[in-house]
């Protein structure tokens, strides 16, 4: 697995950069001095316990909240994001956890909702359908027909539609909030493939997740938040689950760490050989 990480194309320039971002709600300091960089063609996982400030940070980036302090730099320019539609216009797309799709409309209508293509006074259905197939093809998405209502799709397919929709405005950064939270094994794999595909097309991806396996499967870097602060940052090949859990919880004496240390004690020689081969 670690070899596949090394094979990945190097990440490009920094597209989105947060520096010293803080946000206060009354007496609660939800975010203090948070910094994070996202490069083109890179998947940054944002992890943290409940209440660590992940959602607040997502909402700051997507323009729902205005930060109290700190700078957001996007594509080299310092920006203020005044709302979700401004974020979209800048090139920051967000796929929220509850997807926000219209069950009664078909896939094409949902993909282009709010940004329909027009031919004269009328909606350009043919053009939109063609573009929909192109988008779904770049994601290698498995949607049987784009003319069936969203209600007829499975959870993974809906997630696919939501992610495809975030690509309609050709953004540079896509934020995915818990994209695999409600999915089964096969569907989760499908969504992880999508994230891989987003990276291949050169987008910066911010992945918010609770699932360490998912994070380790697709992320390049892992940013850990704890109590509204940067707790740690790992390159994915350097981080073990035990270290991640320790960084998230802020304690090293947890069950994952103790079991991992027991196991590594018994297999230490083996690991040494493996890493030696890689170095050579």
């Amino acid at each position: 697995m670690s070899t596949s990480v090394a094979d990945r194309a190097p990440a490009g320039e920094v597209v989105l950069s947060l520096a010293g971002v803080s946000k206060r709600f009354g007496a609660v300091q939800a975010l203090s001095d948070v910094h994070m960089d996202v490069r083109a063609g890179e998947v940054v996982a944002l992890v943290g316990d409940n209440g660590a400030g992940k959602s607040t940070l997502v909402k700051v980036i997507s323009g729902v909240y205005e930060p109290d302090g700190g700078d957001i730099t996007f594509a080299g320019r310092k920006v203020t994001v005044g709302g979700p539609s401004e974020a979209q216009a800048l090139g920051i797309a967000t796929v929220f956890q509850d997807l926000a799709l219209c069950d009664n409309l078909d896939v094409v209508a949902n993909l282009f909702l709010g940004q329909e293509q027009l031919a004269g006074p009328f909606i350009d259905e043919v053009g939109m359908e063609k573009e929909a197939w192109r988008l779904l093809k770049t994601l290698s998405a498995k949607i049987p027909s784009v003319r069936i209502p969203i209600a007829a799709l499975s959870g993974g397919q809906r997630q696919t539609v939501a992610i495809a929709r975030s690509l309609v405005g050709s953004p540079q950064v896509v934020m995915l909030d818990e994209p695999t939270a409600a999915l089964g094994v096969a569907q989760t794999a499908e969504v992880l493939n999508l994230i891989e595909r987003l990276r291949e097309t050169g987008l910066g991806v911010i992945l918010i997740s609770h699932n360490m396996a998912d994070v380790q499967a697709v992320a390049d870097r892992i940013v850990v938040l704890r109590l509204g602060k940067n707790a740690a940052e790992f390159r994915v090949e350097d981080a073990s689950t035990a270290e991640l859990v320790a960084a998230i919880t802020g304690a090293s004496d947890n069950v994952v760490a103790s079991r991992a240390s027991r196991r590594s004690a018994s297999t230490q020689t083996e690991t040494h050989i493996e890493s030696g081969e890689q170095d050579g």
Partner: protein
Amino acid sequence: MVDQEAPASTVAADLADERLLATHGIGGYGHLMWNRLRSGELGSLPVIVGLAIISIGFYTAEPRFLSSRSLVSITQFAAPVGIIALGIVLVLLLGEIDLSVGSVSGFASAVMAVTLLDQGQSMVVAMLAGILVGVAIGALYAVLYTKLGVPSFVFSLAGLLGFQGALLYVLGANGTRNLPSDSFLVDFTRFQFVTPTMSYVLVGATVVVFVLAQLWGIRQRTAAGLSAPSVTLVGVKAALLLVSLGLLTWYVNIDRGWTYIWVFFVVLVVLMDLVLRRTRWGRHVYAVGGNEEAARRSGIKVDRVYFSVFVACSTLAALGGLLAAGLQTSVSQASGTNDTNLTAIAAAVIGGTSLFGGRGSAYSAMLGIIVLQAIQTGLNLIGVDSSVRFMVTGGVLLLAVAIDSVSRRARSSSGRG
């Protein structure tokens, strides 16, 4: 690799998925229809079946029911309330309700009559005044809904009472106003019929426009590399349209022919259908009715959609009221009261527009009002008391809502939402 076109150029981009059931020719199309019905996508089938049963039932009891004369008067008297029902369809698509359309229609017609007769203004000014009343009421409703958050059920219930009072106030002590029989409104609604030649020209033009639109659609889709319906299918549909419209036209031409007011209503329905299905505004109406939060997040100005729909509904109600006044040649204290409110709402629901929002079409107003008007005419013909008429209408409404609820369940169990 990702950007490559589909390897087999013979397969259209939208038919490439192997899980998609192929439909070939007319038989395949029929099969597709049958599958849709089974999964609860009934469309207008229940109404058409219902209409057939009603027609056969009344015809056996009283053959005059299906006479040319009776069909002409059914369509003529259905049109004004049908226009009101068209507004109700819009409001229902948002998952809201307007209980006050009858009162608004009465109030608007009273304003029109008073402007015409008491103020001595011209017919055009009087009708504009009536329409403006509808626009203003719709705007008021929209402000109440979007700014103050008053539920539509409540403010329209208030409007139901309030505008009935306004009708009485405007008419004053004199009560009824009789419209002069040579006025444009009375002439248009009561005495104008499409001549036989003109009617066949209209039928021919309709079919030609239909065929051209379909063929143009096929060309567009083929050019874009998507699947397109077969030309044979378009031919079959066009032939069916030509034969059914032609026969109906021939039949009503035995009597006086199509009334202007009915043709006006049908044109409104067709235009509304076009606007709902093919424009950005129509798409947004469906989106807000389906999932308001999703619509808002995708950048749709939700408040504007509500505003436009409430205004359109009240304006159509006012227009319907004016035409009803013309048809009755008078405005009285009973205008738009009685059962206009509920007939209009029932028509939209019977026609297949869901009470739950996001589902329905402009044609449901037309189908629903024909059903209700047919029942009324039929019961009148066989000499049944109006007490029975109310009970029958109530029963039909209940049946329609029950069908809506059952098909909704069938849809959700077969994954069609």
